[in-house]
């Protein structure tokens, strides 16, 4: 393999890591909500899409990328709060399939509402001026905006990790995930904790949608692919494991990119091959703990 091929392989690897980081950002909200609430949120892709549209709409009034960057996850999280409080909460304790069916339908409703308001066809979103252009990343040119998205993903994951592992509220969240009954007996209002977790999960989904917009534009169906990716990442990483989501997201991004390098036709299928293999060898996923689904 000559230097040129090595350089190409390097760039392909880097592209894979970048894609993986975006996948992690897409998946982590789903994984979080499942791990803590055992709610399989089928509306995850719809929240992703709504985040992109909220950003688009907000930008019409506040044309500042950075303000929107902060406001979008907050606003999407608020929608998540309403959904949790009035739709999901009445279904706790009724078995895992009730919230699953609810969010499945809710996803369709959200997509249709967006279609009614914004139309069926997609809308373009331009990259903010400060983040335009490509920079040299040693192995070749790479879009600055994608580097920025990786940065945001790292920051979000870091904050999330600190919040869950290092704060007392995080301690309650973790305890609630293990044994909600005991937590309740100890006098903690667990429903408030779940509300917050649902808001964080949907907020991150919205943020991911907002960040995806300059790369692919926005369209009512943009969440469909994301839901699939998020599920594959969550299943491969292990349901409810934050570390698992990160490892699986990066793994899938890298494999997809290397597949595109060797045999492009296989690149989009590669993630499902990984999922099948992982399910055969470790049905609970790479970092999953058994029994969450039961």
């Amino acid at each position, binding site marked *: 393999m000559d230097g040129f091929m090595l350089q190409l392989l390097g760039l392909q690897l880097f592209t894979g890591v970048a894609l993986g980081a975006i996948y992690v950002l897409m998946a982590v909200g789903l994984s979080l909500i499942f791990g803590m609430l055992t709610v399989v949120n089928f509306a995850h892709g719809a929240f992703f899409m709504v985040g992109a549209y909220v950003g688009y709409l907000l930008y019409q009034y506040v044309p500042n990328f950075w303000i929107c960057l902060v406001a979008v996850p907050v606003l999407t999280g608020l929608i998540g709060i309403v959904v949790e409080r009035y739709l999901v909460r009445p279904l706790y304790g009724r078995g895992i399939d009730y919230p699953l069916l609810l969010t499945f339908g809710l996803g369709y409703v959200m997509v249709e509402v967006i279609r009614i308001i914004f139309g069926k066809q*997609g809308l373009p979103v331009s990259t903010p001026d400060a983040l335009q252009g490509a920079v040299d990343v040693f192995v070749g040119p790479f879009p600055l905006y994608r580097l920025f998205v990786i940065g945001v993903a790292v920051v979000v994951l870091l904050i999330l990790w600190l919040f869950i592992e290092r704060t007392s509220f995080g301690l309650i969240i973790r305890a609630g995930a293990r044994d909600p009954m005991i937590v309740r007996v100890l006098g903690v209002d667990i429903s408030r904790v779940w509300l917050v977790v649902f808001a964080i999960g949907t907020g991150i989904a919205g943020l991911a949608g907002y960040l995806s917009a300059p790369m*692919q534009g926005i369209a009512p169906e943009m969440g469909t692919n994301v839901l699939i990716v998020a599920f594959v990442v969550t299943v491969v990483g292990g349901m409810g494991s934050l570390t698992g989501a990160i490892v699986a997201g990066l793994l899938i991004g890298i494999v997809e990119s290397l597949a595109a390098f060797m045999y*492009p036709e296989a690149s989009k299928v590669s993630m499902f091959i990984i999922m099948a293999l992982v399910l055969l060898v470790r049905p609970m996923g790479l970092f999953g703990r058994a029994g969450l689904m039961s």
Partner: protein
Amino acid sequence: MKTINKWTYVLCLASVFGMSGALAQSDPIRIGLPVPLTGPYGAEAKDQVRNAEIAVKEFNEAGGLEGRMAELLVRDDKLNPGEAATRALDLIEKDHANFIVGGLSASTQLSTNNITKQRKVIYISISQSDAINEAADMSRYTFHEALNPHMTTQALGRHLFKEGMRIAFLTADYAYGHEMARGFTTVAEEVGAKIVGEVRHPLGTSDYSVFLPRLAALKPDILVFNNFGRDNQISIQQAGQFGLKANTKFVTPVLLYTARQAAGDKVYEGVTGATSYYWELQNQYDTAKALNERYKKEYGSYPSDYGALAYGAVKSLLMAVKQAGTTDTEKVVDALASLKYDTYKGPEYYRGCDHQAVQSVLIIESKTAPADNPDDVFKIVKEVAPTEDILRSCEKLGFK
């Protein structure tokens, strides 16, 4: 008692028959229009509906077929061949559509055509396909108003490809992409350019990043995007973001007005492609001017290329209906096949063997729109006059 009953019965029956007869007289001419309103080609599909509506309105305003009005039945085929077949069947069986116009992908139009062929219903396809011209798919009832990949790539390739050039493809992995790639490969061989590589992607891909390093490494002089609609827009945008434009010319067989408008100046800057229609044709043809003015009055902007195809198809169909003086399928087929028409872009006719509309192909280049006219997004580089030269011969298509 019994006889009265019998007579009432006969009377009732007669009146019912009479009424249905009267109803049939004022029965509208129903034109089914299945297009993919949902999905990555939604913007183009929506404009096809608008344009088809104008053609129907113009027909009705001119008095219809001796007072019989035309009516458009719009259906969403969701860009899915199965759905397209179901919609076509429903249109024919349940809605009693007289004719079908539509289809916005190579695969949906073939499945629609399968149905219309069986049921002997006229179908005018308004999106690109080579297969629909071939003897295996074509039928007496099949007409193709859009350009086909072969003529598009012939016109564009002869203009752009030079001897010794390196050409790479990013191709949507379905009939449209494959046919475009095949067409370009033929021209490249003719002029002595080299195809250095092809990367295929699934329809509806939203992230092309993993394909781009490989394409850049091929160091092509020309990178051809053999994809369509939002796929085209996103892939060209992302290839630009990855810096590929610096050393490579971007070419796309069908440079879409809708995608260009949606993406803005920057994404499509310097991209060259072909099209069936651009509103600037109004400087040459009165029919183009008439369509533009009507469209502007109704919707406040210009008709798009694919939109105008729907106008052209419905317009020529209704012209044939008027000429035949009936909606009888066999007579309308004969009228359409012998029509020499200029509906919106200068002279056209349907070739005898494959019912392909012989028409001009425009080669256009995207430019930055001037401040005073944001719709002035293309420069017409060349107008390839209507000629059967750039079509595959009837023998080659399998006609004897």
